[in-house]
């Protein structure tokens, strides 16, 4: 092959590469644009960039009748009018429950609002161990973490009405021989965010990080509003 033919050959190879590259670039840009358009559609429906799982359709929590740590009612009505965090556990829990409540203590310290102000949430620690967790114990337990925290519990059938709607599971291990210290409670450890209309709005799965919960809550609050 002459050197002229060789360089001609090289040129056509370079041209081919250029054409293929341009074609690929076009494809990539087109794909990216279509993704952007699709995302824009979603942006209007749901807040983005959250660790928490936001429900596309908020789910009303209805038909449960429990009691708070002062003997007052805890029914769907107590979830109306403010954002609420729900956490399910028991006071004989050494690891998961105190860790979660400690996290929520940090979240409360970082809240931009004060009690009574618009947008200020409530926390309900729901004991799924009513046999051991009496109101007086629950009150001291939960208020150790923050004086604003509430604890609630009630009959198992009423607890089930609430947990079944949310998808929270619980069960007992070795609860048979009458010794209060002999059994433990297994339970889901998600923190549930309920909107001011008493509807389940988001699920926050462990491991729980205070800063993430704080910022996600403010994002969700801002997105959906306080009413």
């Amino acid at each position, binding site marked *: 092959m002459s050197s002229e033919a060789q360089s001609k050959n090289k040129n056509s190879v370079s041209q081919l590469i250029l054409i293929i590259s341009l074609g690929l670039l076009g494809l990539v840009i087109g794909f990216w644009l279509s993704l952007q358009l699709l995302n824009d559609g979603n942006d209007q429906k749901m807040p983005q960039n959250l660790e928490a799982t936001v429900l596309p359709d908020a789910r009303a929590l209805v038909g449960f009748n429990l009691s708070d740590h002062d003997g007052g009612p805890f029914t769907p009505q107590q979830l109306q009018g403010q954002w609420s965090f729900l956490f399910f556990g028991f*006071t*004989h*829990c*050494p*690891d*998961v429950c*105190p*860790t979660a409540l*400690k996290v929520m203590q940090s979240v409360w310290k970082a809240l931009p609002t004060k009690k009574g102000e618009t947008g200020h949430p409530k926390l309900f620690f729901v004991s799924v161990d009513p046999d051991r967790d009496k109101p007086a*114990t629950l009150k*001291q*337990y*939960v208020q*150790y*973490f923050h004086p604003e925290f509430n604890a609630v519990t009630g009959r198992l059938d009423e607890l089930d009405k609430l947990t079944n709607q949310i*998808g929270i*599971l*619980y*069960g007992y*291990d070795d609860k048979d021989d009458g010794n209060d*210290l002999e059994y*433990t409670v*297994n*339970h*889901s*450890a998600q923190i549930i965010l309920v909107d001011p209309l008493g509807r389940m709005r988001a699920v926050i799965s*462990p*491991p729980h990080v205070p800063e993430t919960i704080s910022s996600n809550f403010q994002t969700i609050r801002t997105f959906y509003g306080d009413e």
Partner: protein
Amino acid sequence: MLLIKLFTRVFFVLALCIGTANADSAIKIENAWSPEAPPVAKVLAGYMTIHNLSDKDIKINNVKSSLFERVEIHITEMKNGMMKMVRQDNLNIKAKGHILLKPGGLHMMLIGKLKPVKAGSTIPLTLSFDNGETKTINLKVTTVPNHK
């Protein structure tokens, strides 16, 4: 006289042995702490790092504390959508390895509190191992989580 000398020697050698045994302990425990819990809580947790410096696996036979009815080792596991605590009897620490007890995972479950436990105080804990060693440590009770 000779007998006394012999006794002294035997005693000296024995003392040396015990001294060396301590210095050569195969177990090292670090960063032992317990989060302060509400005064009504009857069950607390203890966290720490336990190192096995030896060439052989070592198991934890038993743990006890004078401030609690009993102590068990548990691991928090996610099972069927629930957090479940699974008791870990005779927990093994691999040769030259360590185990980390931390919130949400392995922990000492301190059951049946006998006396009030407050931040700033300590909880004595005695661990016995299957290599014959026994270690008594103090868990620092603190309100500040220590995730080291």
